[in-house]
């Protein structure tokens, strides 16, 4: 119990750790996936895995939207940025994601006009300020972020802004989970459901996991105590042979989601028949593109985008990390050829990526363990 003193309520942390120990059946191995990169971050930062009995294993899921962008999509963004008169705008996290021939940051250093924005509305402002240029917003993110892009596009349409478009790589949370559940590589016992995505989609879309696959899901908050409590709820379900979707984060997540956000999503976007995920390959109906009503704002229609598929680098094991098959440090290049400063794979770039989270906090955890 080395980290518990850093919790907001250390006593409650101890109690929960004790309850977890009392709940698990010795001799049974439990594999629980935390879907969201925000949870991965909390787990490493607070050493939550050190508080768990040895037979409870946490594996990290595909819920980091930066980590799942395939190389070809990065290359497409760079190709767009090199078109004459284009200003490419994107979130800061995108800048260092490696494509097959460098990152957005490298392309910017070579003269492409790529600008970091905090919000899609900043991108729209840049379009207003530069009427002679074409401003493309390179949109990434799960359902947490997609409604913001949708409202921005609605506004662009209402204002009749002609020089704004969106290269959409928004992804959806349910299909990759289904793909993981169908994959023979991995035997999971339960899921810590994502917090922020669920404020939009609600807890209801995860019901298929308990109904069709017989595994518990607990939608969880991000504080270490939330995560511990969620783990306890999952383990209790397993011990009591129950299986349902529970909402530990009910103080923020409505069970049915944010209806307004879901409404604008379905107005502005439609599902792509299939989309490639880094490391996971093609998953059907797992990403969004602009609906016909917004086709005028679709950068993939306005410009010629190469759309070439690029295989991941050989050394990179991000796919296995994203599927929870290996731990970050089991990747051959972890911490040597691949570091946050010089990432080979995407999981090392975003602070929510499992490799970066482990790199930033993991070593610290191990040192503390030895003491």
């Amino acid at each position, binding site marked *: 119990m080395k980290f518990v003193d850093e919790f907001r309520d250390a006593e409650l942390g101890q109690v929960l750790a004790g309850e977890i120990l009392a709940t698990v059946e010795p001799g049974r191995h439990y594999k629980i996936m935390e879907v969201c990169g925000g949870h991965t971050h909390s787990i490493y930062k607070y050493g939550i895995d050190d508080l768990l009995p040895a037979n409870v294993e946490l594996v990290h899921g595909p819920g980091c939207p930066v980590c799942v962008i395939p190389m070809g999509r990065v290359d497409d963004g760079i190709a767009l940025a090199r078109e004459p008169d284009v200003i490419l705008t994107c979130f800061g996290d995108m800048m260092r994601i490696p494509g097959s021939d460098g990152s957005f940051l490298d392309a910017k250093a070579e003269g492409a006009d790529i600008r970091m924005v905090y919000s899609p509305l900043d991108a729209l402002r840049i379009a207003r300020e530069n009427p002679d240029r074409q401003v493309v917003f390179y949109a990434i993110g799960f359902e947490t972020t997609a409604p*913001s892009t949708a409202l921005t596009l609605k506004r662009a349409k209402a204002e009749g802004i002609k020089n704004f478009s969106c290269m959409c790589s928004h992804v959806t949370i349910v299909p990759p989970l289904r793909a993981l559940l169908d994959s023979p590589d991995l035997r999971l016992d339960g899921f810590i459901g994502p917090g922020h995505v669920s404020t939009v989609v609600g807890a209801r879309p995860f019901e298929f996991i308990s109904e069709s696959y017989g595994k518990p899901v607990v939608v969880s908050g991000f504080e270490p105590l939330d995560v511990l409590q969620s783990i306890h709820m999952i383990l209790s379900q397993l011990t009591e042979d129950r299986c349902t979707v529970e909402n530990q984060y009910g103080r923020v997540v409505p069970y049915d989601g944010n209806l307004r956000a879901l409404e604008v999503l379905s107005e502005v976007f439609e599902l792509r028949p299939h989309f490639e995920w880094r490391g996971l390959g093609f998953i059907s109906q797992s990403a969004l593109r602009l609906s016909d009503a917004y086709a005028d704002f679709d950068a993939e229609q306005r410009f010629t985008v190469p759309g070439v598929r690029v295989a991941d680098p050989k050394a990179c094991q991000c796919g296995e990390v994203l599927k929870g098959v290996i731990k970050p440090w089991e990747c051959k290049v972890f911490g040597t050829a691949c570091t946050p400063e010089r990432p080979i794979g995407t999981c090392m770039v975003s602070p929510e990526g499992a490799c970066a989270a482990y790199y930033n906090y993991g070593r610290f955890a191990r040192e503390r363990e030895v003491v």
Partner: protein
Amino acid sequence: MCLAIPGQVIDVVDEENRLARVDVAGVRRKVNIGLLDAADGGAQPGDWVLIHVGFAMSKVDEEEAQATLELLAGMGDDYEQELEELKASVIE
């Protein structure tokens, strides 16, 4: 970009475009509150909201907002950077 930062709504400054002034860690910024329009009564002055990429995505109570702020402060650099990006943002 994955962070959601709590802020307190000061006032609605652009009804049509659903923009409100929000106090985020002592910085006043405009954010869009349109995604809360279906939630009971929408965002009102004094409400605490979680802000993600310039949009209020859910209402929270003050206790939850404070707890989230503490959690974020504990993240150090990543939170600082997110705040810097938010400060640089100009939503109109």
